[in-house]
């Protein structure tokens, strides 16, 4: 029983790295949005945790130190022996397949289901972005609060 408990507990052992869970994100020079981007990171990238500051992780990756918001990373910690430290180790598909099975493969099957679906519109919507400079200006001009 001890062996079993140990093997299970090892899965949860605190390690040095966390994983990016959004398609793309940024390690910033300061722990706030709109701070200069020091490094662009992608889904599955592993980052070394140096500390915490409020809702932000202080991290290190590819020789760069900076901050990433907690909502962009998996709070569960990963063994540093894991693949692809901060180099885009696991693909989007690999990460998504680790869950309930709803992934691009299933979406592709659903598209063929004959239902009335407008994925072209969805692809158009998810391409909509606003650049950070425009957003910062919009916030300032509208007398809104800087995040």
């Amino acid at each position, binding site marked *: 029983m001890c062996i079993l408990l140990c093997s299970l507990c090892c899965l949860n052992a605190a390690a040095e790295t966390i994983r990016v869970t959004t398609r793309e994100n940024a390690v910033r020079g300061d722990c706030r949005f709109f701070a200069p981007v020091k490094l662009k990171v992608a889904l599955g990238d592993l980052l070394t945790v140096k500390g915490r500051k409020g809702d932000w992780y202080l991290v290190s990756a590819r020789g760069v130190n900076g901050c990433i918001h907690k909502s962009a990373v998996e709070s569960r910690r990963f063994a540093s022996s894991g693949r692809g430290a901060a180099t885009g180790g696991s693909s989007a598909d690999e990460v998504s397949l680790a869950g309930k099975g709803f992934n691009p493969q299933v979406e592709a099957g659903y598209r063929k289901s004959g239902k009335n679906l407008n994925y072209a519109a969805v692809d158009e919507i998810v391409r909509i972005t606003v650049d950070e400079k425009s957003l910062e200006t919009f916030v300032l001009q509208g*007398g809104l609060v800087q995040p």
Partner: protein
Amino acid sequence: MLVKLVLMLTLCLLTTGFSFNDLTPDRINAITSTVMSIGKAARPLGDDEEYYVGRAVAARITSTYPLYRNSRLTEYLNLIGQSIVLHTDKPTTFGGYHFALLDSPEINAFACPGGIILITRGMLSSVQSEDELAAVLAHEIGHIIHRDGIAAIQSSRWTDALLVIGSNAAREFGPKETAKLVSLFEGSIDDVFKTLVVNGYGRDQEKAADAAALGYLAAAGYDPQGLTGYLNRLKQAGQGSKGGILTTHPGTEERLENVREAAVASVDTAALPRRNKRFANMTR
């Protein structure tokens, strides 16, 4: 979570006449795998999976309501939405937040899981200021962050999904497994779509989304009273007609009362005229 799983497993082993002599490395691996699977079934959808659910829901909605392609207004909508999102508990999602307009005179708004928010031209015409429009978006952001759409999926589908994917996270599913998962996915999308478009969320979910919206608006620097203004527009619209958001969001009077009673932090309204001016410029 792990402690719960270990306790659950220990209980199972003890109640099934488990003997320590039975423990071989292979059995340990099998048991570990089973425990991880149980954990997976109990866990809500991952952000990435929620994204695919949201895409499918949006694909169904946009097959009924076509996109309103006005790049200026769409950018304005996204600037307001992003200004709010950055002050929430979840400023980033797997695929990010995206806001779009639908070409329909009906007054309606939809929060698709994962971060796609759709509002109709009718909704845009019904609000009278940027702060009211911000309130509409903040309410929908609340539904996304509370995962209200995902909560509409029947829980039995999760156990069915577990039966299909088994204890190992396959890198790629075979045709049989894929077909079963597509069927489960389809059922899940039906559940969410029905809630968003036909039945609406529960009263508690609406109340919670309104409460969250008040907090997001205040944190972002928008006047939380914008939510009162928006609900008043809904109330006025409800006096003349039915349908759209009035079908899926009943009880506007009750929502207004809840919002009035909520303790709302006061915000500096000095910049309100500037925001009203840019709203007028954008929507004229």
